[in-house]
């Protein structure tokens, strides 16, 4: 029989061992599957996981892909700690992209150092408003934020669609549903000469650091966490549930909106009907993989981003269908989530002590 018992002491390396085991399990499963397809596991795995990282270009693209995941992941980690279920970061991201993009288009062709901050502010406000709606409805009418934030995601995507099919359409674009390309003053600077890694990644790291500080040292972080853990304890301490709901959703909305405007101005360069391949939902996974620790969101976000890049590399160089890579992403996540048990518990073989 196999037994699980709590560790008396949890050491820092237990986390890493758990992650390593999960990665090894993924590699083992992947090797077995590749071998069964008649492919050489070693060279195949190299092509999928390592080669994308062997060039500046590849690293740059990895950072670009990870940027929204980390940014939103940090904000969600704070909110989830407070027990506020903001499932609608995707919608807040879309609104951020839409509003920020609209500002960029309003100042199209106008240069000035102030354009970019204004664009970022516009996007942040857009996301903030979209996060404020579920907060208001929750506080004022006791309407559950899971439903409201999720439903608003679909509304935001349709709103973006209306706008790029109509008012924000490129006037010279033959009525195709795309905006103009943003001009240079409304485009985020790149980090490298190759790829699309942009300074949004630096912001993401800053958010993670800031988030850690909020959790550890700022009273608000403590207050939010207490409210998240126990409503009665919070009430006893005089903490307001409403305040926590507001803070969690406003932070989540504003930061997701920021991620959205960073995505359109740093990565895409214009408004299009689809600005996010479900970053807002994937960031939920990232937040929990990091066990809601803002700093740990960085490696979690990079790992998940790599799994997407690896999926494309697998299609390109091995010709496996996209569905296979999706299955493997699922497996990788299962392994990562399943082995997190090893951090706080150890597995004993044999009889019960």
């Amino acid at each position, binding site marked *: 029989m196999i037994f699980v018992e709590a560790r008396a002491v949890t050491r820092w390396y237990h986390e890493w061992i758990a992650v390593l085991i999960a990665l090894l399990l993924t590699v083992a499963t992947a090797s077995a599957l590749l071998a069964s397809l008649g492919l050489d596991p070693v060279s195949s795995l190299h092509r999928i996981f390592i080669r994308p990282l062997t060039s500046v270009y590849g690293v740059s693209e990895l950072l670009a892909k990870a940027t929204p995941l980390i940014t939103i992941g940090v904000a969600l980690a704070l909110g989830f700690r407070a027990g506020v279920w903001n499932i609608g970061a995707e919608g807040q991201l879309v609104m951020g992209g839409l509003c920020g993009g609209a500002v960029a288009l309003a100042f199209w062709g106008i240069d000035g150092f102030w354009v970019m901050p204004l664009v970022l502010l516009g996007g942040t406000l857009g996301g903030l408003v979209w996060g404020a709606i579920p907060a208001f409805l929750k506080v004022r009418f006791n309407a559950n934020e899971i439903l*409201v934030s999720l439903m608003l995601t679909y509304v935001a995507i349709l709103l973006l669609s209306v706008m790029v099919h109509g008012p924000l359409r490129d006037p010279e674009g033959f009525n195709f549903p795309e905006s103009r390309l943003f001009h240079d003053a409304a485009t985020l600077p790149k980090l490298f000469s190759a790829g699309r890694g942009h300074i949004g990644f630096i912001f993401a790291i800053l958010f993670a650091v800031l988030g850690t500080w909020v959790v550890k040292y700022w009273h608000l972080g403590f207050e939010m966490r207490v409210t998240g853990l126990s409503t009665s304890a919070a009430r006893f301490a005089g903490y307001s549930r409403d305040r926590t709901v507001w803070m969690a959703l406003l932070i989540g909305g504003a930061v997701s909106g920021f991620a959205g405007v960073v995505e359109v101005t740093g990565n895409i360069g214009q408004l299009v009907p689809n600005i996010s391949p479900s970053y807002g*939902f994937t960031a939920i*996974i990232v937040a929990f*993989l990091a066990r809601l620790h803002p700093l740990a969101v960085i490696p979690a976000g990079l790992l998940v981003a790599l799994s997407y890049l690896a999926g494309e590399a697998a299609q390109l160089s091995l010709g496996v269908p*996209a*569905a296979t890579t*999706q299955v493997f992403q699922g497996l990788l*996540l299962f392994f990562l989530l*399943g082995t997190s048990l090893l951090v706080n518990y150890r597995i004993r073989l044999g009889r019960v002590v």
Partner: protein
Amino acid sequence: MEYGLFTSIIHAIVIASTPLVFAGLGALIQERAGVLNLGIEGLMIVGALAGFASALAGYPLIVSVFVAAFAGSALASIFALLVLRLYANPVATGLALTLFGLGLSALAGSQYVGQAAPQVAEWIIPGLNHIPVIGRAFFSHDPLVYLSIVMAGTMWWFLTKSRAGLILRAVGENHSSAHSLGFSVIGIRFLAILTGGALAGIGGAYLTLVQTPLFVEGMTAGRGWIALALVVFASWRPFRVIAGAYLFGGVSIVQLHGQALGISIAAQWLSMLPYLVTICALVIIASRVKGENSAPGSLGITFKESK
């Protein structure tokens, strides 16, 4: 048409809403046991494929429904193992389950693209179907529609009248107390997850067997998420899941008819209606009944047996 437009609209609403009813009930039973499973979308699509494959192989409807339910349960058991035994975070595991289910169904389902399942016969309820207007709208449907209503009724009875249901709710409300009373929290949640997986699987199968009826990858197109939202809308009560699903499905269908009748509003605005109406309805309900519509106490919290 031999029936009036109104009747036809109601008939279509019932069909469009039924997958949401099944999937919503599947999410509900799990949540009442304290398990938040965001993998409904993945469970639905796997059920959709399994049911479709069975129908194509020539098995009768009842067998296909069981196959879909079994497939949903099988996939859900992965979730149960991770969440209950390995204490994995349920929210992230549910999302991973969705990814996994979508990928798995796409992989296994590519061979079924281009094939069509046999049509499911309607079970016309004698007598009732002659009632003007609603007779056709409500009493001449495929058997699964009636099953969805029966399921909601059964679940209502189970949760409110039966001892087992009481235990399940106790586990969902406060798993530590339930545990100290000697109930197996893990065992009960495991059964709830399997049942929920089965129901979500049937919900998916309804799409491929009746509503669409064909299989293409990704065809659930977000219905699993709507089902999750509807459980919240229903404040975790079975019959309100039906109400929520019919409201959502109703607005979706009516806006399509509105367009065909020539309403001049941009279609995207109309497509937003089901979501906005659901939010408004929730706000009205939630602001009227304070307190009683809160989520199960232990929802989404991992239970760890302490020895």
